[in-house]
């Protein structure tokens, strides 16, 4: 009887490992749902990018800022909870900013998102979180 080449065993093992890794990756990647999207405007009211809020696996909430071009300096991303009261979600130095806001976050907790220069303190952009667009 013709015996199978032992190398096939190795191939099967590799396939099994890859299947396992793929399954784990797809589970981790989760299911992202766009909750709302807003335009980020400069002080001169020009659009400079977009702010999006996602829900991941219906639990964790994520903020994503996509700018059309790099700003002159590193900026703080500040989420204003109500008029004049906010908290910093992090710093943005390139054109993309992604940060988890935790499962308890709701869009009702934000009235605007502001990009403020770390060194100069200047406001580079603002997105008003319009309640009618909140998901």
């Amino acid at each position, binding site marked *: 009887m013709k015996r199978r080449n032992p190398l096939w065993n190795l191939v099967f093992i590799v396939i099994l490992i890859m299947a396992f890794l793929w399954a784990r990756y797809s589970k981790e990647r989760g299911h992202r749902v766009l909750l709302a999207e807003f335009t980020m405007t400069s002080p001169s009211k020009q659009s400079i990018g977009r702010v999006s809020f996602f829900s991941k696996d219906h639990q964790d909430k994520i903020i994503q800022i996509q700018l059309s071009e790099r700003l002159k300096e590193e900026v703080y991303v500040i989420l204003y909870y109500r008029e004049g009261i906010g908290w910093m979600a992090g710093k943005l130095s390139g054109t993309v900013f992604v940060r988890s806001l935790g499962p*308890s976050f709701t869009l009702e907790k934000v009235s605007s998102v502001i990009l403020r220069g770390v060194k100069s303190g200047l406001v580079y952009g603002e997105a008003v979180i319009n309640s009618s667009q909140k998901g």
Partner: protein
Amino acid sequence: MSRRRKKHGFHTKFIFITGGVLSSLGKGLASASIGALLEARGLRVTFQKLDPYINVDPGTMNPFQHGEVYVTDDGAETDLDLGHYERFTSARMGRRNNYTSGSIYYSVITKERRGDYLGGTVQIIPHVTDEIKAAIVQLAGSDVDVAIIEIGGTVGDIESLPFLEAIRQLRYDLGRENTLYIHLTFVPYIKAAGELKTKPTQHSVKELRAIGIQPDILLCRTERFLPPEVKKKIALFCNVEEDAVITAKDVDCIYEIPLIFHQEGLDEKVLEFLNIWTREPDLKSWEELVKKYKNPQDEVTIAVVGKYVDLKDSYKSLHEALVHGGLANESKVNILYVSADELTPDNVAEKLAEAHGVLVPGGFGYRGAEGKMEAIRYARENGVPFFGICLGMQLAVVEFARNVAGLSGANSTEFDPDTPHPVIYLMREWFNYRTQRVEIRDEKCDKGGTMRLGAYPCRLVPGTISHRAYNQEEVFERHRHRYEFNNQYREILTDKGLKIAGLSPDGELVEIVELEDHPWFVGCQFHPEFRSRPMEPHPLFASFIAAALERKRT
């Protein structure tokens, strides 16, 4: 507790204030001032005082031991620091803003007896600490941005250890961005050496770190501003950032503390640690208040005749309310504390000669009562503005009954149960509008928490001094009393010239009495001092000081 709260974002954030080296450094005022600064930036604040003593509340404690018992609208008998919190901010305090070791243990033991712990061994950690954490975390909510928690006592005390352990755990439960530790310590200036000494602060922080708490900010109580090299040294030895070492300099006017703290950058640092972005604080009203306090147009002397005069903390709110009354009249109020024990018919005129007004505050027990009545008689007969509060009002009624109405031997049944004329007697029942229940009491009731406590409505009689002062028909004032005006004597006394100026809405309880043919004679059963604020002086205190100024000018 859910680990979810650890995530960043805007939750209610907690500031924990501890004290070291020695007591009476002013943790309460420091907490209140931090609250005032945060409020000036648009944040909504609340407070909580955690007292390490075993009494369930301070209601049964001697004022000499504890100082004033501050009463809140909901009828809680609390620590006097809650008075500072209410005076410095718009936060309103209540039962959930003051816990003691006694109340925490009481709750744990009640649960144990009920079987809530399912046969488990009940221990300090986690059962007592969990109870403390639950008491703290209940303050969180959408209407509160920052909760300031003051731990009573001094670091190193055995009885405050469960509270410190609970706040240590809370950093891990809530996350670094949602918690902040501020330690108030002492930096003495040694005149002989001409130096500020940092060692007590170093030891105090060492003590705190041994418990597992690394303070983020050090508030250093001292006579003079700390120079940069001293701050640097403290920062190095205590493992804090240099700009987190804040001078808490002694001040003449307590309302200046928020301004001093702001000048030192305290509010900025607090916000940095808590990751809160706000506008610049609006401190204009505080600056104007301090300016008014430091530049009075006139001054007046008020004699406070009481029996706890050796411990000024016993009359804390009263003292502040008189100051507020002065501010309303752009005048400085010199308070002359007179021991009621020392007043006799022979020396009363001499002892009160300097006073432009006489105030007899609340109190308990017979000691000093006759002296207080001498002061009241002196004020009544000489047209000196008189303000009687709680017991002060009751004694004014007794004095009037004896010396004007001719009811010989008239008294309060608190002092003489067999008096022939009990013009003041034990309140046996009253309607509690908060619980919508009739409260029943007798002589055998427990002493703790059984008085008529908290805010009750009072209808004012038009044409009276009180009505003119308040300019309202109905007011809510805080009460703390067991004895009350005896309605059987209402007609006899009013026929002789006593005026009933305020009554409970059902007309059953006399709340304010006044005198006809006297420039300013007001006795109130409630405690108006608990509702006076520096920015909103209480109408009765403002009116009383105005009358005293009038007396001085004439």
